[in-house]
């Protein structure tokens, strides 16, 4: 059964490393839905978190094929119970003088931050799990969503080990 997995890739931060990984997914028919990429505490390395939809067999291939890329140093699939996943979302909603305070109250419940207020709209930043963001989006729909920007998931395993 295909389900979502978080795959961690540590790679040498060479030009085109993102292209190499994404092109690999494309040509092998693997399904990647989200990708976040950034630097890490070790200079010269990129840390990439991929959200992959795959069954066990394909997931096995995903790991092995990515690891074949010469610049890739480590590949790991996070166990569901052993990982902290976060996504950052910016959401722009319609807000009038009457609805503004309601929205701020709801955002507070979600530990969101208000980043911008205009006479007719607001931008709120929310960080959390996929479910939490989805919940917040649902509520905001009643006020009217103008824009959503999400970063994709970044993840880290619990405990001392990588």
């Amino acid at each position: 059964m295909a389900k979502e997995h978080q795959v961690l890739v540590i790679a040498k931060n060479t030009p085109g490393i993102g292209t190499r990984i994404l092109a690999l997914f494309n040509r092998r028919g693997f399904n990647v839905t989200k990708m976040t990429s950034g630097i890490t505490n070790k200079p010269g390395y990129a840390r990439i978190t991929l959200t992959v939809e795959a069954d066990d067999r394909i997931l096995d291939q995903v790991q092995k094929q990515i690891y074949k890329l010469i610049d890739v140093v480590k590949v790991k699939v996070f166990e569901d119970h052993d990982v902290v996943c976060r996504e950052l979302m910016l959401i722009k909603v319609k807000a009038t003088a009457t609805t503004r305070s309601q929205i701020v109250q709801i955002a507070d419940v979600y530990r969101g931050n208000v980043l911008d207020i205009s006479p007719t709209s607001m931008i709120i930043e929310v960080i959390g799990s996929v479910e939490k963001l989805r919940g917040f989006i649902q509520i905001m729909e009643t006020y009217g969503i103008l824009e959503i920007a999400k970063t994709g998931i970044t993840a880290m395993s619990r405990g001392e080990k990588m």
Partner: protein
Amino acid sequence: MSAETINGARIVLETLHRLGVTDMFGYPGGAVIPIYDEIYSFPEIKHYFVRHEQGAAHAADGYARVSGRVGVCLATSGPGATNLVTGIMTAYMDSVPMVAITGQVGRPFIGKDSFQEADIQGITMPITKHNYLVQDIHDLPRIIKEAYFIAGTGRPGPVLIDIPKDIQTEKISMTEYNKLYEVPIQLEGYDPTYKGHQGQIKKAATLIKNAKRPLIIAGAGVLKSGAVDELKALAETAHIPVTNTLVGLGGFPGDHELALGMVGMHGSVAANNSTDEADLVIAAGIRFHDRITGHPDFFCKKAKIIHIDIDPAEIDKNVTIDVPIVGDLKRVLTELNALVEPAKHEAWLEQIRQWQEEYPIVVPESTDGELHPQYVLSELNKIVKDDAIIVSDVGQHQMWAAQFLTHKKPHTIVTSGGAGTMGYGLPAAIGAQVGAPKKQVVLVVGDGGFQMTCEELMMVRQYNLPIKIVIINNGYLGMVRQWQQIFNDRRYSYVDLEMSPDFLKLADAFDLKAARLDNVETFNKDFKSYITSDESIVLDCRVEREDNVLPMIPAGGTVSGMMGKKGVL
């Protein structure tokens, strides 16, 4: 006195030379003029001048396959580089070690759609084991060393290095170059597994001990790992029949009593029936290609499968494996052989012998003096030396060459298996002859594929290569025609070549000897002397037009759906 300096172009050659490169195949162009300027005064590396860059890549490939060394090819930027692409992809599909060097426009011109600019690094990303765009001359010695190392180790493959022209002309001091050259290779993300897992090897040995109907399917991994003796020892000790994949032919002596010949779409009935009936399959250095497995869900259905391969990504890729062993085949088989006990499987071998007797691969009888392609190949088999290198192009003749030659020795077959690249044959034969100058090289090629790269005939003449070129000329793109006959109700859409050049005149234009063999009588009279002569020759063998390669398992089919087991449809 100023310190001695070295420019980027010379760094390329000097580094290749230090790595042991003695030959390269290339074609000049604007963005590699500095490299060519240095080749001019670099006698340690012999440069072979192809007539089309595709030929350079195929020649480097043929060279690598027969010699086991890394093949090197060189081309200019833009179209020069893109002309290498088919050859690089061909090498990639068959895991052939190759370093392809391309010139690139100078760094200030990159990204400006400059003259003869192409993003060859981007283009070749999916068809190389790794590739580089050099950004700094100080990286050049490291990159060339790494590329050579990556190409030839682990699962071999092509590596491309794209070098901007201004880096080729830039200079550093010789002292600095030497220092950079001495830095050991450090590739954190590249560490092939050579030693097999002990527990898995023990499991494999137990399976072998308990098997009643074991079968070895041996691929090109046997040749690449140099595991020919170890494979033979395993087969003989445990009394296991061996079938080879197309590119694995020669990895087990074709005349051995345990040899079943080729497996797969056009494999022997005995080999394919064995895959269906075996209770244990030892897959040694194969990758379960669809031309081998047919429908993967029904392949080796009754068997447990032990898969030994150096590439972990091949495990469970196409077929689910019971006992995977990742490692170098030679090492794994050595350890496995130490655990395997002598056995006999007479009943199983008897069953296989029955299949062999009942379904031999047959040469059609000539009723009216007509020449059959199968006859040409079976006669060739009687004439050539045991270690002769048989190069084939792609199509019907390729399959007949695989079926009718005995393939007694390793590294005697050069053919594009995974990629199926028409036009591969002639340039690959040239590379093979350069890589094995003392050996007899015979190219078997169709009239279609020959026309794709026949410009390289000039090299045969220029370098006096004694290659025997046997054109199996049926006036058709025969393999496509065969499929159209079987699957498209004989709608022979655009497979009749209708017009072809006169191959004798063509050979003459390249100052090569040629002859036409269009019936059994002239063939029997002259063929042997042409093949055994010391000179190259182009032989236009006019054969029966509509012979089919049989038996055949249709694409995605199963052994039970094998057609033409008796040699007729």
